[in-house]
């Protein structure tokens, strides 16, 4: 799984950090998303998908290697 975040779209709602903490963080400076792990392990996949679906700004995109 490969994650792409769009910092321009992000509104800093924090949904992704609440859902998949090791993968996403928010910048100290502006509260906008920071991707800690663009290719997270399989165990994190479900949380990452949930984070993407909860993101109110549609700022998280997932590319599946399998597809």
């Amino acid at each position: 799984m490969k994650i792409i975040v769009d910092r321009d779209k992000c509104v800093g709602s924090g949904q992704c950090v609440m859902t998949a903490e090791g993968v996403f963080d928010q910048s100290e400076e502006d509260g906008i998303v920071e991707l800690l792990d663009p290719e997270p392990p399989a165990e994190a996949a479900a949380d990452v998908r949930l984070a993407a679906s909860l993101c109110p700004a549609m700022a998280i995109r997932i590319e599946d290697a399998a597809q």
Partner: protein
Amino acid sequence: MTTASEPAADPAAVPHYPMERAAGCPFDPPPGLRERQRKGPLTRVRLWDGSTHWLVTRYADQRAVMSDPRVSADVRRPGFPNVAPLPPDGASGLSFVTMDDPEHRRLRRMVTAPFAIRRVRAMRPAIQEIVDGLIDDMLAGPKPTDLVEAFALPVPSLVICRLLGVPYDDHDFFQANSKTLIRRSIAPERRAEARRALLDYLDGLMADKLARPGDDLLSGLGERVKAGELTRTEAARMGVLLLVAGHETTANMIALGTLALLRHPDQLALLRESDDPALVESAVEELLRYLTITHVGRRRIALADLEIGGQVIRAGEGIVLPNDIANRDPDAFPEPDRLDLRRGDARRHVAFGFGVHQCLGQPLARIELQVVYGILYRRVPTLALAADLEDIPFKHDGAVYGVYELPVTW
């Protein structure tokens, strides 16, 4: 695909919005909304001024509209579905909540960092201390007492004052004006006065912060004013938005949530008998979903033609999105009318809205509610209502739903 713009066959059949709740069902959305949800994805509603707009009731459709960049939240656009007359001075709503990108983004980003998850988590011990202190005071005081005055309002007021750098000693002033500002049944002139009073107050505070900056959010805005990124008026407007949004909403969730729990004793028992943080977290999400206190709904206007549920909303048409009924959509939440604190996925609710305007303060609201629901019923296990449900004054006329008073004893 049919076009949805045909006029309704019988104009008298277009129901009024906001709709009324059923007698004796203070926690449930109006039955008229449920009926509309069953009817189809898009129906029409009529507002106070006779204008008609699209009503979107289903969870998936609401998320689609609210996250669509082709809708505007600017209440001044002609045809915008305002639920009450705009103030006579023609001024817009409060800061960026009624602006569109890129202006909305520019301003929201200036205050996003203080609401980031890690920043807000660091406030937890201070919030816990505030909550513990207020419970001590309440227990030491007379009973019955009004939970709103004694507890529900002071918790978020103290927290937001600390975060913004607003003196809590002024709480009588700003609480009274906030209450007026968001009460629909109050004349627009009086609401405009309340907003003016709050703006003047925040403008005065900004002057203090510019002269003597401290370690708080308003001083941070002062730095930006000095750097020329923001005008002092814009800063004061943002201050009003944060102050009002920061205490009215959470206060209502505390009081109405407590009432809902008192009326669902089996659910209350879960919280009273557990110290599992995961249960408290899911309880907060479920109460947010079940109560959805921002009951006048989101409102938007289409900037381009949009397709929703196979129908078309035309550019320039108004859209009303009551989040309370979306959070009771059976296609999104099984047995939606059941309050179930152990519901696994309540967090998908739209009680904080969706799209670029989704609540900025949600991490803070969540922690405040987790601290409150996690301790209040454990420390006051005999907490009980000291009035009949019929005698509780509900905020049917508020922009935010809740109770004006909640007499309790223990």
